[in-house]
């Protein structure tokens, strides 16, 4: 056996080297971005990185009010909007100044792309006119009072658009971080101080934690089971920061299902879930019960939605009143994500005393999401991520927005709600949705980030974005060796 021990030791010694002190900040992320061209980016990681590399005309503040970033705007009428670029805007990373022509080129190219998932949002644009170097006029075919809120796509340089530059892999914007390289990891550099920040995909949560402990990663954020978060909280060399979340988790219901069309059944399911117990036992700090897609602090949020309590006896009574034969058998579809499957098994256990036999079907993401879009489900669990505007209620519940024309995946049809949505009466619309339960609101999961003690100026944002990479610093150069 000596030779075996010698072999292993040799392998380790060959590889053994002191841990290198690194100036760059390493961020271990769950999922690498897929495409860094903002005209194509739809996944969360790509959008979060795009926010750092590019700048849009407008963005949203903490309560999701519209905020000028590159430009302020003026509504000439419901069909014409004039945007004036800020004088203090930064040039593109290739040192070319950003002008109104770049804005026009970005949105013109978006309209011409037939395979962009964002193109449909801008189909209403009739023309884009450059009035001068700093001023652009958008003219619409149909009136749209929410048009400025749609202009959140990062602006690209006109000269590179014209040459067919590969923004997907070599992005050039005028944001606070510029692109350096992208092979096994994505490397960015902060413009104002030259700080290098690298983002590396590490899918497995345990491995992300081990990399943080080893010092290979300086920062990790989200997507950890609570027991690993607690484990990290007890590590003296690690600091864990948390904040409230704004991403809304819910149970989707198929409103074309004969049983689920009965409001009493939907109420029964709602009363059969002990959301507070789930939040307390298996979710991270700062998670909270949700009532609507937009959280109460949002300008269109509704703080008056009283949580449904956990009451299995009442749930059973409601089911009996609804004339349902007990136990009520329901199929719940979810993805294969470990935490989602864990939630599903808890829901199954909680619903049992209420007379609901929940059958769990855990499917790979592609199949699961296709089933949801096709209406091939009774119940499903999903989360809305990064929603900023109340138009989501119309997209998710309006009768006209059944897939493939929108996100009304539960195929809910309610003429009264349609009227409220058309009038943009958000308090009344959210109250109606909450009472009618076309979906069952669950929670806003808290956000957290764990980092080395010497990493400062970083805290997670409620929607999980990585905007604080613009401020993050390593306080002093400390060796990562343990």
């Amino acid at each position, binding site marked *: 056996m000596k030779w075996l021990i010698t072999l292993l030791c040799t392998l380790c010694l060959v*590889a053994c080297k002191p841990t290198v002190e690194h100036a760059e900040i390493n961020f271990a992320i769950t999922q690498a971005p897929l495409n860094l061209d903002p005209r194509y980016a739809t996944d969360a990681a790509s959008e979060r990185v795009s926010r750092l590399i590019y700048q849009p005309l407008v963005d949203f503040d903490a309560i999701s009010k519209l905020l000028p970033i590159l430009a302020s705007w003026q509504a000439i009428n419901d069909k014409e909007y004039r945007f004036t670029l800020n004088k203090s805007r930064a040039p593109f990373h290739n040192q070319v100044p950003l002008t109104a022509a770049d804005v026009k080129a970005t949105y013109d190219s978006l309209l011409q792309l037939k395979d962009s998932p964002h193109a449909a949002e801008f189909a209403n644009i009739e023309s884009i006119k450059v009035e001068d170097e700093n001023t652009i006029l958008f003219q619409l075919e149909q009136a749209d009072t929410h048009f400025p809120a749609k202009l959140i796509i990062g602006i690209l340089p006109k000269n590179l658009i014209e040459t067919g530059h590969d923004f997907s892999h070599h992005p050039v914007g005028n944001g606070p971080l510029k692109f350096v390289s992208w092979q096994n990891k994505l490397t960015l550099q902060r413009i104002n101080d030259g700080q290098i920040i690298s983002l590396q995909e590490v899918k497995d949560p345990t491995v992300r934690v081990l990399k943080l402990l080893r010092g290979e990663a300086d920062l990790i954020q989200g997507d950890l089971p609570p027991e690993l978060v607690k484990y990290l909280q007890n590590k003296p060399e690690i600091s864990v920061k948390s904040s409230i979340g704004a991403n809304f988790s819910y149970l989707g219901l198929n409103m074309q299902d004969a049983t689920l069309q009965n409001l009493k059944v939907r109420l029964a399911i709602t009363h059969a879930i002990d959301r507070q117990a789930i939040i307390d036992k298996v979710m991270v700090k700062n998670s909270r019960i949700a009532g609507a897609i937009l959280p109460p602090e949002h300008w269109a949020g509704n703080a008056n939605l009283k949580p449904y309590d956990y009451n299995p006896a009442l749930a059973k009574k409601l089911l009996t009143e609804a004339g349902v034969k007990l136990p009520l058998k329901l199929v719940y579809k979810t993805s294969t994500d470990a935490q989602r499957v864990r939630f599903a098994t808890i829901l199954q256990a909680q619903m049992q005393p209420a007379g609901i036999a929940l059958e769990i079907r855990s499917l790979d993401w*592609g199949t699961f999401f296709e089933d949801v879009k096709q209406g091939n489900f009774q119940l499903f669990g999903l989360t809305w991520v990064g929603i900023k505007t109340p138009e989501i209620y119309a997209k998710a519940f309006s009768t006209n927005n059944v897939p493939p024309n929108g996100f009304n995946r539960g195929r809910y049809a309610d003429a009264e709600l349609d009227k409220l949505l058309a009038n943009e009466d958000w308090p009344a619309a959210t109250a109606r949705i909450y009472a009618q339960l076309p979906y069952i609101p669950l929670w806003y999961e808290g956000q957290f980030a764990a980092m080395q003690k010497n990493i400062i100026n970083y805290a997670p944002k409620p929607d999980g974005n990585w905007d604080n990479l613009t401020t993050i610093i390593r306080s002093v150069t400390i060796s990562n060796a343990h």
Partner: protein
Amino acid sequence: MIRRIVSFFIVIFGVLLLTFLLIHLVPGDPVEVMLGESASTADRAQLREDLGLNQPLIQQFGSYIAKLAHGNLGRSIHTKTPIIELIKTRYPATLKLAVLSLLIGLVIGIPLGIYAALKANHWQDFMVTIVSVRFSAMPAFWLGPMLMLVFAVWLGWLPVSGMESRASIILPAITLGFGLSAILTRMTRTSLLEVLNDDFIRTARAKGLSEKTVIARHALRAALLPIITIVGLQMGSLLAGTVITETIFSWDGIGRLLVESIEKRDYPVTQACVLVVALSYVLVNLVTDVLYKFADPRVRFN
């Protein structure tokens, strides 16, 4: 040999056809994947037409084969990267990991197997059996993090995961190699024990050859055939990518690319990965057959 080459092309064509059909049978539509849920029906129809997805299946398959013949694997739906570039970066990573894992498996497995056979039914044989059963019973999703904990976090000798340094390959290779070594130990032991009782071994010993010569020159060579078979099969699996190990160790190999492409319904990438995996299997099988002939001259290609 000509028959082999013909069967090679038949297998590859069969794989291409099956993958193409399966991909069109599973739920999911590339146009939906590209445009999301907000696109209008007209936009979807237009893109479907532009991509040729409204053509009959046989025509789509024909145009796929024609493109393939020109070395055009297409582009990823999500990343827009030419697929040939993805394969060029991912496949060598898998190949490197597979070769090193196989070496570790061979270096540990064959000597342990020989040792166990020579000490058959003694306590040493029993110990080797226990160790090899332990190795084979340790799944990668457990062994990988355990190796990381010990060698990376506690001892600080090796990186936890990633591909930045040359040392990054050691832990994933050991994770795969240990499992492989267990199989090879058992196979070598069994195969050698069978041969050791054969007449030609008795003759070799009767001629007065040393035990080392008998084992190394006569017994081991005769026992090699089943070992080569197992090595060939395992190498095929390794080249198909070892998804769990690649995922745990953030190793950007072909297996991970394949699974991610299936999850994201990135059909052109899935097709290309399956093609590469099938090619690997067929080539490894071919090499295995050639090795049979070297190990045992009685084997003929017929």
